[in-house]
């Protein structure tokens, strides 16, 4: 058999020379990458017109693994960088894939403002409840009472409810899935890729190596079993009521609305200005 014949159908979506990846055994990032490239494949998207942008953290390395134009920014700045790319060349499909700490702690301000402006970018957040790359510190999504290396006596900070934050900030599409819901996550990514405007997908993910084993979920499978037990699919429920608790994770689509994107509005104004100038001549 030739190499072409034995090629996995998704292989062309991956940058082979970047392998092996850096992720730990049992990590959920591989599932998210898989769902992402599967969505590209099923939509038959032109890989030459896609830019994948990430910040810093474990999932931040994903931009290196996607076989598209890609950029690995400074910590927290992926959304701001993406804003520049999309406005400069609206023909590009601009996707940010980054972690909860990157997008919502150090990068929180950029996230809410890009959503408010309705910049036409798709943001996928791998939420693993902690800072994995630096060894398991607490972050803006760490559940109350969870143990991390910097909350050795239990976390007392209330976590963000990311889907509520995204919806309140103005996102046109908001969905949440866990890595257990791989097919549904893929469908949501496909939907987001076809929407105009700022869309947000929270992909709750297992981090057995530095979060799970400190919180009675020593393997990736343990966390996925937890996802299975407590996930509750409820489409279009009030995102304000979708706080993640140890007993329940509401998953599904939360927002799916139509609004003209920031770039479209800017181009509309540009056309008006240029029309007026022509009239004056």
């Amino acid at each position, binding site marked *: 058999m030739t190499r072409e014949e034995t090629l996995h159908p998704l292989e062309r979506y991956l*940058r082979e*020379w*970047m392998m092996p990846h850096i992720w730990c055994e049992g990590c959920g990032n591989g599932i998210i990458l898989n769902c992402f490239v599967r969505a590209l494949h099923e939509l038959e998207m032109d*890989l*030459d*017109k896609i*830019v994948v*942008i990430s910040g810093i953290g474990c999932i931040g390395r994903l*931009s*290196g693994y996607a*076989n*598209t*134009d*890609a*950029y*690995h*920014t*400074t910590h*927290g*700045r992926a*959304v*701001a*960088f*993406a*804003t*520049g*790319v*999309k*406005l*400069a*060349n609206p*023909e*590009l499909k601009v996707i940010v894939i980054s972690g909860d700490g990157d997008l919502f702690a150090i990068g929180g*301000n*950029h996230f809410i*403002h890009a959503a408010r402006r309705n910049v036409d970018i798709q943001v996928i957040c791998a939420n693993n409840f902690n800072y994995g790359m630096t060894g398991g510190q607490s972050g803006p999504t760490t559940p109350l009472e969870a143990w991390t290396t910097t909350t050795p006596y239990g976390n007392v900070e209330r976590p963000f409810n990311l889907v509520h934050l995204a919806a309140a900030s103005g996102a046109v599409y908001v969905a949440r899935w866990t890595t257990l819901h791989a097919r549904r996550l893929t469908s949501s990514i496909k939907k987001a890729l076809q929407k105009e405007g700022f869309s947000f997908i929270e992909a709750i993910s297992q981090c057995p190596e530095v979060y799970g084993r400190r919180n009675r979920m020593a393997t990736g499978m343990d966390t996925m079993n937890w996802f299975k037990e407590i996930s509750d699919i409820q489409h279009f429920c009030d995102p304000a009521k979708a706080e993640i608790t140890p007993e329940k994770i509401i998953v599904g689509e939360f927002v799916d609305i139509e609004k003209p994107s920031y770039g479209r509005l*800017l181009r509309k*104004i*540009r056309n008006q*200005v*240029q029309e007026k*100038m022509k009239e*004056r001549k």
Partner: protein
Amino acid sequence: MAEKGKAVLTGVHFMDGDTACAEGALAAGCRFFAGYPITPATEIAERIARRMPEISGMYVQMEDELSSMAAVIGASYAGVKSMTATSGPGFSLMQENIGLAAMTETPCVVVNIMRGGPSTGQPTMAGQQDVMQAKWGSHGDYEIIALAPASVQEMFDLTIEAFNLAETYRTPTFILADGILGHMSERVEIPNADMIKIIDRKKPQDSPEEYLPFKPDKNLVPPMASFGEGYRFYATGLTHDEKGHPRTDSAEAQQKLVQRLCDKIRKNADKIVKVKETTLKDAEVAVIAYGITYRSALSAVRKARAEGIQTDLLRLITLWPFPEKHVSQLAKKVKAIVVPEMNYGQIVREVERAAKETPVVFLPKLGGEPHRPTEILEGIVRASS
């Protein structure tokens, strides 16, 4: 009034320095601006916000200067000449992504209309206190280019030059002006568009399969593909090899990359550096000045010559890379050098280093006003005695 809606407003204008800077950027081909309001640089953003829609460019007001700088890098990688403008406090916030721009070799222009610091300092007053920050502001070893205009005309001319240098060397390039230059109005002559020299970044000649995004040409600068052109390349702020592959634990890759990032500026310094010298045959004293201070220095030097003190004047147009050769040659000729600066001692340190044994008289000025020519004249008299 020149014809509205053109990128190059050919004609004679009376405008302030911030506006001239904005017009220089548009004339240079800048079609993306991201910024955040800050005194005394806001007028650049205001002018560009009004002008960009006329010429199909993009203006975006970001949520802060961190994101402004990030967006500028993104736009540049998307193939559009891009710029931001700020003052000290915003310049501090931009340092993070200025480092990223240096590391990923991003052509872009950052204008700093300097005011008094530290911190919030004197927003409406002028200063030259960010000169060292421009060189050393982000962590790690890297080199940048910085130009210091001294007139409103030069706010236009040197902004074009800054874009050309940024594109040639794939490096962040700074305009270091000050609140006086930004806000004062003077005559500005904008030439015909075809008389303006524009340099664009070098594009790769290789096929996408062969393209190595960080493999330099002979001049140490790699040709640059843009997103969406089919090259499907990867750029990272991590230490990387010529392919763009992260090499975070390779001493060799770190040495090779960082050395080249510095050397592409250092080894091309003779091509980059610009100064203006007014020299006499047997000068005993020299004044070295830049920016708005140069104008006071020019007046002081004329007075000194009238009083019979043979005085040279070296104006630094390029601040970084530092015009070391020019300063050391001058130092060999005169018995003392006078350095007036609107800070408490920045470029004077570079002058002292290059001047070696030649004594340097430093004239600091804090408070937001430029030196009076008589203050510099007193320095010249002191240096000559």
